[in-house]
């Protein structure tokens, strides 16, 4: 039997195992476990054997990691300091002795580790991915970067043939661009698909042979060659039912009929996430001027023996010569050799909308609170053990020995917490992947998969170690350092290390942060829940909406600018034809074209015409003349958009605003005739826009707990069908359902023009439900984070209070012995806590007021007067409850016992 035909253990644990086990034992351990795996698999099946292998691996990881650590420490400390299993057991016992502290501290570390590991995993799998192709790390992209404008120059068809001819360090040079085309079915319905227009060399660069038929050939690129297409495994399976005789079949893509010449194997989606490949016609006879032509990506493979550096050197020489021959404005462009995936990441700059910035804000504050609380807990615990440490030192324990033991104890906590953190990350990444698939419409690049990699596990382990060092070693070093002598000297007198000023400062800052941060978080959560639970403001079941794109069907070899005007005219004509055709369709009440659904405005900053009005943010949506009528939105003042506005230039057209806009942006008064403009962030001055009418708020604003409403200022600008070539078409129906009308709509669109692409077609209320659902999910995240912040704050207060009571045991004991009434002692203990809480609340209130003022009221939206005091009162109550337990424990101290124990 050959080794290849025998089953192998699961790859990930095996790789982990090989990483952890030291060189001298690696092969025999690997071999022994392999042998046992094969036996077990034969006896009890693959699943049981895999589970067994995983468990064994985890055991090996734990023990070998610990063994390595012990050896390292032994080397450092020269003998007796190495942690033992006994230390670990002791650590576990100490954790179990104070479950509250352990759980909260562990939770803090788990969350912090989860955030750290998630960051690492995401950065690695999305920003430094491994390309899953043969020698994927030798695939490179070639780009030109404009360092001054900080932009990639993507019009590379001038350079491409030169690079292809002259570069020797990069082979199989290819180029592609992504286009959207309609796949037209036999029944005449068009469905948009994403197509890679790629040079035949792309398949050679990827080094993946076809499953059926052939890949693209250079001949397919020649002018006049028959139109051919290669399809991916997924569409072969889903659309063509794995038809084995698919090669030779004809399908209509956009305006042309293509012959299927090959099927690529499962998982192949090169160059990004493609399932259809057609030739990129690059006619060598047509010369394309620098900086013209369509945007393409250029890629290739490093030739044998070449490195990125040598390729870069060769490219620089070629690019300099080409630049010297070409126009001066392109001379500054810097041609670069990049790792294959890097060029695709530049366009994906994170969304800058309010929700993501809110989340970022929450997460960073959350990290601060977590870090502070864990520090508080550890500090409190170590200080409480100063006496014990002093005694052990007196009995002959070396400093290294004590530090080691505290490290081992901390490692038990941080190790367990890190495992929990890793679990959170596994679940979180799965959610992230799903969100990514949704965000990218299922077109996730083939190299992106965020599973837990070996590196992630090792990184988690490193974080656990780091946490153990911070949590265990630093406090231990402090506790065994210069202050130790003091503690030893005071052993008999009963006084211990004091926490006075530090303790007060920690509690005060903690409470202040919570009071300042919670109100905006609560408000955001409230708004999201309200959005998710309320009914939409339009009749459900009457509207169907679809995104549309009118394709600029320009040939790759021709300059886009030459064709642009003609294409835009033709796009306008197509949309006008579609709207006219829909008007004649029975059951259609009307149609409107907008940049987004009623709840999907773009946030813009506007400034008014009066000197006093400051720039404010508002939502802007572009609509056509039929929008308000179609949704039944009432005019309150002035007039609606009319056909007379259409011939005006876009910037000369009047705008319409809603009721909230008048109060929020204009500050009341007569709105008609007032002028506003976009705030300019450059030297260009934006034109003034004149308000012609006021409509009621649509959708109606959400009521806040304080009786105010959320910000809902909205401005409407006018655009006509055909002016927006990529927008949302909403149709109001009577007598038919949105679902029933969808196939008709597709047929109508294809009959108007086969290049008209409709996507994300859905009933408008279903679209609203999706939007509301994502809001609700976000609200859940906000609620979770808020909940954990409160829990951690309460735990921090509780821990510090316990410590303080503990330190005052002697005092309480003496006072009890002297006959002080319990109530007075309780009051004196609580008074201190209340003072600290009060100080924290006041500071928090001050910060909240500053936040509210500097954000122009946007953070709390007028609910500050209600929410901030409510949060403050809540924190006071939480603080007092947290303090009450330890205080009561203090009261139950028996005087004799308290005195003796000292």
């Amino acid at each position, binding site marked *: 039997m050959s080794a290849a035909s025998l089953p192998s253990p699961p790859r990930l644990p095996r790789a982990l195992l090989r990483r952890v086990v030291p060189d001298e034992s690696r*092969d025999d351990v690997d*071999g022994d476990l392999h042998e046992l795996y094969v036996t077990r698999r034969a006896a009890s099946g693959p699943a049981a054997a895999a589970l067994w292998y995983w468990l064994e691996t985890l*055991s090996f990881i*734990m*023990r070998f990691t610990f063994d390595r650590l012990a050896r390292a420490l032994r080397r450092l400390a020269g003998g007796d300091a190495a942690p033992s299993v006994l230390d670990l057991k002791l650590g576990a016992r100490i954790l179990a002795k104070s479950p509250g502290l352990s759980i909260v501290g562990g939770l803090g570390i788990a969350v912090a580790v989860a955030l750290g590991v998630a960051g690492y995993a995401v950065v690695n799998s999305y920003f430094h991915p491994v390309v899953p192709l043969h020698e994927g790390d030798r695939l490179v992209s070639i780009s030109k970067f404009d360092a001054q404008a900080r932009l990639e120059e993507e019009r590379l068809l001038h350079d491409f043939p030169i690079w292809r001819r002259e570069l020797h360090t990069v082979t199989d040079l290819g180029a592609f661009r992504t286009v959207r085309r309609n796949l037209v079915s036999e029944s005449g319905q068009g469905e948009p698909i994403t197509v890679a227009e790629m040079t035949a060399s792309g398949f050679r660069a990827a080094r993946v042979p076809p499953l059926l038929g052939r890949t693209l050939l250079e001949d397919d690129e020649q002018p006049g060659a028959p139109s051919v297409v290669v399809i991916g495994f997924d569409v072969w399976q889903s659309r063509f039912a794995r038809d084995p005789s698919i090669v030779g079949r004809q399908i209509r893509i956009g305006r042309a009929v293509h012959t299927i010449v090959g099927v690529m194997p499962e998982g192949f989606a090169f160059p990004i996430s493609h399932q259809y490949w057609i030739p990129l016609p690059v006619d060598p006879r047509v010369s394309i001027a620098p900086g013209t032509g369509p945007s393409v990506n250029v890629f290739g493979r490093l030739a044998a023996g070449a490195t990125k550096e040598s390729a870069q050197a060769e490219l620089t020489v070629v690019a300099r010569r080409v630049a010297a021959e070409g126009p001066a404005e392109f001379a500054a462009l810097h041609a670069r050799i990049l790792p294959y995936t890097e060029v695709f990441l530049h366009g994906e700059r994170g969304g800058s909308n309010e929700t993501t910035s809110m989340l970022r804000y929450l997460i960073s504050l959350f990290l601060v609170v977590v870090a502070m609380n864990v520090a508080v807990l550890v500090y409190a615990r170590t200080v409480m053990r100063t006496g014990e440490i002093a005694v052990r030192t007196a009995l002959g324990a070396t400093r290294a020995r004590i530090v080691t033991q505290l490290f081992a104890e901390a490692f038990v906590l941080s190790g367990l917490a890190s495992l929990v953190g890793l679990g959170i990350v596994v679940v979180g990444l799965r959610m992230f992947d799903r969100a990514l698939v949704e965000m990218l419409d299922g077109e996730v690049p083939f190299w992106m998969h965020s599973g837990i990699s070996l590196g992630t596990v090792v990184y988690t382990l490193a974080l656990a170690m780091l946490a153990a060092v911070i949590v265990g070693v630093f406090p231990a070093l402090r506790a065994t350092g210069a202050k130790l002598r003091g503690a030893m000297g005071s052993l008999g007198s009963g006084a211990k290390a004091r926490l006075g000023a530090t303790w007060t400062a920690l509690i005060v800052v903690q409470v202040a942060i919570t009071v300042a941060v919670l109100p905006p978080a609560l408000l955001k959560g409230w708004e999201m829940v309200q959005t998710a639970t309320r009914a939409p403001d339009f009749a459900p079941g009457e509207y169907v909406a679809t995104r549309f794109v009118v394709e600029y069907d320009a040939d790759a070899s021709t300059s886009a600018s030459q064709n642009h005007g003609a294409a835009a005219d033709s796009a306008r004509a197509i949309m006008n034809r579609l709207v006219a055709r829909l008007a004649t369709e029975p059951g259609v009440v009307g149609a409107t074209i907008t940049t987004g659904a009623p709840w999907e405005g773009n946030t813009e900053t506007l400034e008014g015409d009066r000197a006093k009005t400051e720039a404010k943010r508002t939502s802007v949506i572009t609509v056509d003349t039929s929008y308000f009528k179609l949704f039944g939105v009432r005019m309150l003042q002035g007039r609606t958009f009319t056909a007379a506005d259409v011939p005006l230039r876009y910037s000369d057209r009047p705008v319409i605003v809603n009721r909230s806009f008048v109060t929020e942006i204009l500050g009341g008064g007569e709105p008609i005739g007032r002028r506003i403009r976009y705030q300019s962030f450059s030297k260009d001055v934006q034109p003034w826009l004149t308000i012609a009418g006021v409509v009621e708020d649509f959708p109606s604003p959400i009521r806040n707990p304080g009786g105010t409403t959320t910000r809902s200022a909205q401005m409407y600008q006018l655009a006509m069908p055909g002016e927006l070539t990529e927008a949302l078409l909403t149709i109001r129906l009577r007598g038919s359902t949105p679902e029933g009308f969808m196939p008709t709509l597709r047929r109508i669109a294809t009959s108007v023009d086969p290049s008209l692409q409709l996507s994300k077609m859905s009933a408008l209320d279903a679209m609203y439900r999706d939007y509301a659902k994502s809001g609700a999910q976000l609200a859940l995240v906000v609620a979770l984070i808020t909940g954990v912040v409160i829990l951690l704050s309460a735990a921090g207060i509780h821990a510090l209070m316990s410590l303080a009571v503990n330190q005052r045991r002697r005092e309480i004991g003496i006072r009890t012995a002297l006959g002080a009434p319990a109530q007075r002692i309780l009051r004196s203990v609580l008074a201190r806590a209340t003072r600290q809480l009060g100080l924290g609340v006041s500071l928090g209130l001050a910060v909240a007021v500053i936040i509210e003022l500097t954000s122009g009221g946007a953070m709390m939206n007028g609910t500050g007067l209600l929410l901030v005091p409510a949060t403050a009162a809540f924190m006071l109550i939480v603080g007092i409850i947290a303090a009450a337990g330890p205080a009561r424990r203090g009261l139950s101290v028996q005087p004799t016992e308290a005195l003796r124990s000292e």
Partner: protein
Amino acid sequence: MTHQGLGEFEQMVLLAIAHLRDDAYGIPIVEEIERRTGRRVARAAVYITLRRLEEKGFVSSWMSDPTPERGGKARRHVTLEAEGAKALREARKAAERMWHGLDPASLRTR
């Protein structure tokens, strides 16, 4: 006492090697200890102990030829060295001296 201390688990591993003679490597050592003591043994602990025993000079090892059912990996066979045998004998003697005068059946407990 030996000149280098021998832990209880180290003793078990050395004794298992002594029992197994020429066929001593990771898998049978674990099985031998489990069979004779009737308790579960963490496999990783055996490998860590073997490494430590070899460093102390109590055992030596040699690699067999690789086999396909082990994923092309060789076995590490271990042999008891003179130092190891001596340590085992001393550990036994120490235990015997400690037992001297005691009847295992009638150990008094509180």
